[in-house]
């Protein structure tokens, strides 16, 4: 057991005018996760500490927060890899509801703009649609997104321009545009090549560093850009 100092940014906008920092010391076993620390604080010191959590092993995407300046999942951060002083803030760029809980409505709305579902009006075959391993390879990384919001929250363009689709929504677009079974290529591409879409990505790579699933988000966006350009010249021939 070792003592850690959790410095947490607390804020209840309905009751306070500005965020406050509060420090807690917590006894932690080296095998424990940062999330366990937050739960200990909530259970033992301050029941008002508010954060989201569910699966506790990095697949549901609930507990994304800013940990020592870097976005990540509290349940995927092992305490033994942390310094003794840990600073925890809510994800940036989303409005705070309470403490570490942010309002992600806008974030989810962005994804909906890119028609985030497989579209194929052709009569389906009796059995599964065939998809070669190579075709699937293209989308394998993009389907692992857990919509935790870490990427979009780390994007400087999104900080200043909330109309930008953001990395998560663009990755969603990629997931369907490059799915060999999808047939809404033109429509979906049209939804991302406007001024607030692809072109607001300036290859800053913060999203790649923020992604807890280690998805090369910028790489995927770059492929979309190239596809858009290729498509532009093909159509204008």
């Amino acid at each position, binding site marked *: 057991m070792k003592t850690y100092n959790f410095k947490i940014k607390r804020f209840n906008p309905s009751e306070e005018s500005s965020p406050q920092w509060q420090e807690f010391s917590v006894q932690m076993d080296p095998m424990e996760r940062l999330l366990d620390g937050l739960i200990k604080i909530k259970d*033992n010191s301050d029941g008002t500490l508010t954060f989201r959590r569910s699966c506790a092993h990095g697949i549901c995407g609930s507990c994304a927060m800013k940990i020592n300046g870097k976005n990540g999942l509290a349940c995927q951060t092992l305490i033994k890899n942390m310094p003794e002083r840990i600073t925890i803030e809510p994800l940036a760029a989303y409005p705070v509801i309470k403490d570490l809980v942010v309002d992600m409505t806008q974030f989810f709305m962005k994804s909906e703009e890119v028609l985030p579902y497989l579209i194929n009006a052709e009569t389906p075959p009796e059995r599964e*649609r065939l*998809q070669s391993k190579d075709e699937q390879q293209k989308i394998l990384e993009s389907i692992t997104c857990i919509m935790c919001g870490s990427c979009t929250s780390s994007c400087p363009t999104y900080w200043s321009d909330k109309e930008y689709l953001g990395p998560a929504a663009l990755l969603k677009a990629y997931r369907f545009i490059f799915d060999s079974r999808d047939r809404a290529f033109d429509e979906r591409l049209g939804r991302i090549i406007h001024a607030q879409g692809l072109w607001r990505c300036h290859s800053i790579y913060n999203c790649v560093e923020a992604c807890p699933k280690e998805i090369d988000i910028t790489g995927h966006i770059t492929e979309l850009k190239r596809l858009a350009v290729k498509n532009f010249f093909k159509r204008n021939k």
Partner: protein
Amino acid sequence: MIHQFDTVIIGSGLAGLRAAIEAAKYGSVAVLTKLFPTRSHSTSAQGGIGAALGNEEPDSPEWHLYDTVKGSDYLGDQDAIEIMCEDAIRTIVELEHLGVPFSRTTEGKIAQRRFGGHTRNFGEAPVRRACYSADRTGHAVLSALYEQCKPLGINFFSEFHVLDIVIENNKCHGVIALQIENGEIHVFNAKSTLVASGGYGKVFKTTSNAFASTGDCLSILFNAGLPLEDMEFFQFHPTGLYGLGILITEGVRGEGGVLINVQSERFMERYAPAIKDLAPRDMASRAIMTEIKEGRGIDGKDYVHLDLTRIPNQVLSERFPEITTFCKIYMGIDPSEKPIPVLPTAHYAMGGIPTDADGRVLNDEKAGVIKGLYAAGECACVSVHGANRLGCNSLLDTVVFGRRAGIAMAGENKNAERGNIHRDAIDNAASLIDLTIKRKGDQRIGDVRSELQTDMMDLCSVFRNEQGLKELVSKISIIEDKAEHITLKDKSKIFNTELLDAIEFGHLINLSKVIASSALQREESRGAHFRDDFPQRDDADWLKHTFAFKKERVVEFKHKPVKITKFQPEERKY
């Protein structure tokens, strides 16, 4: 705020969303979830979803049926199992058409792998039946279903915590829920209501279940006088990461991983000579606990090793990227180099809200139903899993019976009146919150909750006996009293998660009591329920379902015969 919908669905996991897609074709649908839809625990399902597609080797629904019946230790209702296994192929193809990115064979078909208890030709040898998307099958299916809900205009109410399901005169009128973000109470009047709220693994200390898996709706219905079926059967998954309970899918054993003890012996060969490490979960869990009890745990400690070093590196990284990452992150172990310490972890509730094959909730052991109330998924008990669920049958259960419930609700809605929830029910829900917030006492929620979870783990997990269960029942009763004295520090209306913890804890206590009492009354060993004092299966007296009813502060039991069609009970050997 009052909402009017044709169908209200509680829970946005696979069962809820699959039902929503169906019901939305015929009317307005609201889906309530206390998380955000894609955060539902279905997303954690790793290994696969079963169907006798025969893409990799010959297979048939008949074999699938046999395996499931045998896996259930003959407690599963065979008519329901037959429906599930027959519908499995169509279901998987449909999911594929909806966009699920299944892993593929070299010909581009859906790939399949071996899973525990799934065999060819009635038990001969393991068969490749589990369709998968690497080791993120649940995530892949849940995402696709959620995505397909979008163009259908299904209304999502995210972060709404259900306070009550209102039943009057044998009809369900709808749901009362708390909007977590602002503490407002919302009323959902509905023609039909589907409970698809998932499992309740959080009654145990070590579990693969999410924090959200607290079984709120089962407890609400139980309190309303409805029965809960077969609650003594709780599955422990053999391979949870030691100390954490995070799951390592059975799929790894399907691809060649093996369990080994301190003597580096592949001990499953002794327990299930035919299918070895692919024995069903109840047997594998018991085998591991027996090895540990008899001193063959690793280094004298309470765990065994799961050896994945025998799986080719490429297979490991292609098909199990997620668990490879888990092992590295949480244990600091690269599974391609070193074996992983594992221990059984509370995983899946076979029992739940009794329903018929169309999801209609039964109000007694004689197949009477509640109008307008449905249940599907882990919270329901059809019962297709009987005393022990086979791996990759749970995802199948959710989508097959979720869809059927959706169709049934759409049918019933045509001639049904929309429910009308009365003022006093709403006031009751509001006062529950008020009372919980204002409660005074010296107990802290964290302490009492971990006491309950530890007791359940110690006295009601893989091995059980009369003495322990009796002790447990009285302990739960003490905990119930303590819970009356839990004080909350958070009094605010905004995102009060401490309040939710308290409400959920009440439900956990309630369910623990039902589980412990059900386990105590069943004096035999069957499937996941193993009694040291009654180690044999007793078909003469106990080939029947348990129906638990609430009677004041105790639990009362009735029983219902098992539906047997094709396969007569036999000794269960693998």
